[in-house]
């Protein structure tokens, strides 16, 4: 089984994307489509006393105004609002009652014949509130934090801080060299390019077809069914293309509730598209305040680590991820302690954002390691090598594979790390200060249960179907590659169906687990088709495959062929003809093999060069080398793009990104992409991606996933480079020029 897997393949959906034919959630039209415009709260906490909708209703072409007072019936219990990935607590219920829980909360939906009228009318709604005191500032809640809750089941335990080891306080006190620092990462918003949208098409008889921007069509389907008491067969959710997710579409967002409310109330199709400012009332990467203390002996190995973290969540839900576990996992240290506390804010619930927990926590860990290397007067890469561990330091078990050493070696070689002068402010180029920094990255390699249906026709065309999503990750393409190889047919003979809740079950597209899950799922289903063909082939007269076992045949070039003797083959078309069929369809569920005795992770090493204008503090990330160990790479072209994009995210995180809240109003004040800066083309120079060879047998295809790992460590590498360039250590992101301007 080889051919397409592991090669560089252009996206099979590329032509659709470059011609504008790829359709996103707002691009499905329906006769009689009405447009919904959201009215959002302008206070952070309180109650709605009165909503005056008369001004809106007077605008010609307004169809209706939906508020908590006239909305369709919705469930009255938290369980109904719990989506597949909901955290602990009580999920927000859009237009449910008169409570205002965050600024920007939807409090009414104006539905009109055109989007222009809907938006106009929405601006004419007058709301009276009784305001209550709110808190949106993490730093005002430091005395009121709560510990992360004790897990009630194994899936929750994944996010609990690891147990303490040894006697960290004593070990820190007696360490030859200590570093202690407080690091801060602000709230960051996903800022995917597509606006969250739901087009809810009401069908006669009350069925709904919902085109929604989501990373999990079946998650949305279950959620809509729960909230509105509908049956799964009456709700179909589609998302064939998604204009960027990064975690923002893991949970159903409020636009889908509002669109469905209006469609049910009006019995006609309704589209709700958020405005860009309204996107900032959705989930966000929680701000993270963390203190790390590391003690080392003079030989440069660690004696103690303490890592204390505070992140933010809402009043109604308790969102947190594994924040401290990464520093527990990565490096050898006999003594360690970890703590994670939460600050509740009057804001929407925080959410997953690319490499949740790791992007922020490993940033601090890897900056702290850099600071320790400076204190120890050893090279930062050398320190990582001295502290290298071949075993999971939390559970003391081996890794299924860990080629981080190779990442360090190949990344350093490609970057030219050996030419680094260790002294800060020692390197220059044409007047600019030059800094080189590096950092380690780590993420989980996870596989989830998934179901794949394949229908193979006699003439060698296959349709592969699964309710997963392609959020830009290249899922369409890797699915086709794996199917083509598994079935022995050309890539162009494979068609992929995904992003439809009516297809075989898939988990949400997140956590970097879909590539491993769906690729192995395809291989499993293809094997079932092969077996099916073999059973029929064995009944053919004079069959050459009479004594061949199911593991000893392959599909290749339109034949069913013995792996041991290529002359023993029959044409698939003949097998099907013999069986009296023109296609074989199989649907199989593939679950990961339980392998608790080994740790399953991806790793990376990032090397960054910055150039800093000494007088003005302007920072340019001149080049980045990212070396990644992530098992088998299914498609080197789309995989490299994922890492490339992650590095760009890291540049934004390090230098630009911050959601700014005016705490007097509890309101995001840079709720647009002119003032919330993400990198533009001019910010991005040379990025080199290296995939190191990392054979892994955790799953048959040896796939680990790539969506997150490319980001973890990038901000630290850049921050460390800024220190090396300027001699100034900035521990609160983003590193804007005012934080380094004083260095001259």
């Amino acid at each position, binding site marked *: 089984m080889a051919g397409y897997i592991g090669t560089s393949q252009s996206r099979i*959906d590329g032509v659709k994307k470059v011609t504008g034919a790829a*359709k996103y959630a707002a691009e499905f039209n329906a006769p009689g489509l009405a447009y919904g415009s959201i009215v959002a709260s302008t206070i952070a906490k309180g109650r709605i006393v009165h909503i005056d909708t008369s001004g809106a209703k007077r605008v010609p072409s307004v169809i209706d105004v939906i508020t908590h007072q006239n909305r369709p019936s919705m469930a009255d219990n938290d369980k109904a609002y719990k989506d597949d990935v909901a955290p602990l607590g009580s999920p927000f219920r859009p237009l449910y009652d008169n409570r205002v829980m965050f600024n920007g909360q939807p409090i009414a939906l104006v539905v009109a014949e055109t989007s222009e009228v809907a938006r106009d009318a929405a601006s004419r709604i007058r709301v009276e509130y009784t305001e209550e005191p709110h808190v949106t500032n993490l730093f005002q809640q430091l005395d009121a934090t709560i510990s992360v809750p004790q897990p009630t089941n194994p899936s929750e335990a994944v996010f609990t801080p690891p147990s303490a080891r040894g006697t960290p306080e004593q070990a820190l006190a007696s360490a030859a060299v200590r570093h202690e620092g407080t690091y801060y990462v602000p709230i960051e918003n996903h800022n995917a390019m597509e606006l969250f949208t739901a087009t809810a098409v009401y069908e006669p008889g009350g069925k709904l077809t919902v085109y929604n921007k989501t990373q999990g069509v079946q998650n949305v389907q279950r959620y809509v069914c729960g909230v509105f008491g509908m049956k799964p067969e009456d709700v179909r959710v589609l998302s064939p293309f998604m*204009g960027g997710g990064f975690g923002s579409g893991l949970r159903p967002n409020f636009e889908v509730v509002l669109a469905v409310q209006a469609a049910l109330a009006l019995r006609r199709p309704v589209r709700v598209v958020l405005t*860009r400012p309204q996107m900032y009332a959705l989930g966000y990467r929680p701000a993270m305040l963390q203190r790390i203390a590391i003690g080392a002996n003079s030989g440069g190995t660690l004696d103690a680590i303490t890592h204390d973290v505070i992140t933010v969540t809402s009043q109604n839900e308790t969102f947190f991820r594994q924040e401290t576990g990464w520093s527990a996992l990565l490096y050898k240290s006999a003594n360690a302690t970890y703590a994670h506390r939460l600050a509740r804010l009057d804001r929407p619930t925080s959410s997953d954002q690319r490499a949740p927990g790791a992007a922020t926590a490993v940033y601090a860990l890897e900056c702290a390691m850099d600071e320790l290397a400076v204190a120890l007067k050893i090279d930062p890469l050398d320190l990582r090598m001295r502290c290298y561990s071949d075993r999971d330091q939390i559970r003391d078990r081996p890794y299924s594979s860990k080629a981080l050493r190779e990442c360090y070696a190949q990344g350093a070689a490609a970057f030219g790390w050996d030419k680094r002068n260790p002294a800060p402010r020692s390197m220059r180029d044409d007047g600019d200060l030059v800094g080189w920094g590096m950092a380690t990255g780590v993420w989980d390699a996870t596989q989830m249960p998934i179901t794949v249906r394949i229908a193979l026709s006699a003439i060698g065309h296959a349709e592969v179907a699964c309710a997963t999503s392609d959020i830009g990750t290249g899922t369409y393409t890797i699915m086709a590659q794996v199917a083509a190889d598994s079935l022995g047919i050309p890539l162009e003979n494979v068609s992929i169906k995904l992003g439809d809740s009516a297809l075989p079950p898939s988990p949400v597209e997140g956590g970097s687990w879909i590539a491993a899950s769906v690729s192995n799922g395809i291989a499993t289903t293809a094997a079932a088709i092969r077996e099916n063909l073999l059973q029929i082939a064995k009944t053919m007269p004079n069959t050459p495959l009479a004594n061949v076992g199911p593991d000893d045949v392959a599909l290749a070039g339109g034949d069913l062929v013995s792996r041991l003797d290529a002359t023993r083959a029959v044409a698939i078309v003949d097998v099907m003809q013999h069986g009296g069929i023109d296609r074989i369809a199989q649907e199989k569920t593939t679950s990961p093999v339980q392998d608790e005795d080994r740790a399953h992770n991806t790793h990376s090493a990032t090397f960054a060069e910055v150039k800093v204008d000494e007088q003005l503090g302007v920072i340019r990330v001149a080049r980045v080398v990212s070396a990644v160990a992530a098992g088998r790479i299914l498609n080197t072209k789309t995989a490299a793009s994922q890492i490339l994009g992650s590095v760009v995210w890291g540049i934004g995180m390090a230098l630009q990104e911050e959601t700014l809240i005016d705490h007097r109003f509890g309101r995001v004040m840079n709720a647009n992409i002119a003032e919330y800066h993400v990198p533009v083309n*001019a910010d991005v120079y040379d990025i080199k991606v290296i995939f190191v060879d990392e054979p892994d047998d955790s799953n048959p295809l040896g796939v680990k996933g790539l969506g997150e790992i490319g980001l973890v460590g990038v901000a630290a590498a850049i921050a460390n480079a800024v220190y090396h360039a300027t001699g100034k250590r900035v521990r609160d992101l983003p590193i804007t020029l005012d934080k380094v301007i004083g260095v001259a």
Partner: protein
Amino acid sequence: MTDPEDGPTFHPTRRDVIAAGAVVPIAMALPPGAAAQSPSVAAASGRVAVSLTINGTQHVLTIDPRTTLLDLLREHLDLTGTKKGCDQGQCGACTVLSDGRRINSCLTFAVMFEGRHITTIEGLAAGGTLHPLQQAFIDHDAFQCGYCTPGQLCSAAGLMAEGRAKTPDEIRELMSGNICRCGAYPNIVAAIQQAMGRS
């Protein structure tokens, strides 16, 4: 039966479409009274007539004057290849070519484009053959989610027509009005360089 992935059949029978493809005079269709009152007053009723050519086809419509060129394309003509990413001129996803120049279609009223020739992503490929930029974007994997891509492509076509960008630095700067949150920028620059080499 309609495949839901393609959506229900679109009905371009909305009241605003008077004619498409027909050759009509370019001049504004003024209500008689308005013309007598002042040569410049149009449509006090709130709806205004506009005629513009999109991808070579002339469209004559009567629209709400608030309709942006972007919404005209997406909501009235089912040309959904042009994307709405911010609706505020901050992302470039809505970039189209107006008389060959790249503009943000979200920050302009369609009615102001009377008589202009608009090219959208749907009009970039000539006769079923991909534009060299489109092929280069595929070759270099210059996109991931694809949502900013039509805007990047129209912007790149405008950039090539301008003839100002020669170096990677100049391409980067002059493509900075198109945000790609997936971070495909280096591949976008490489793709544009490839297309420039061919043209």
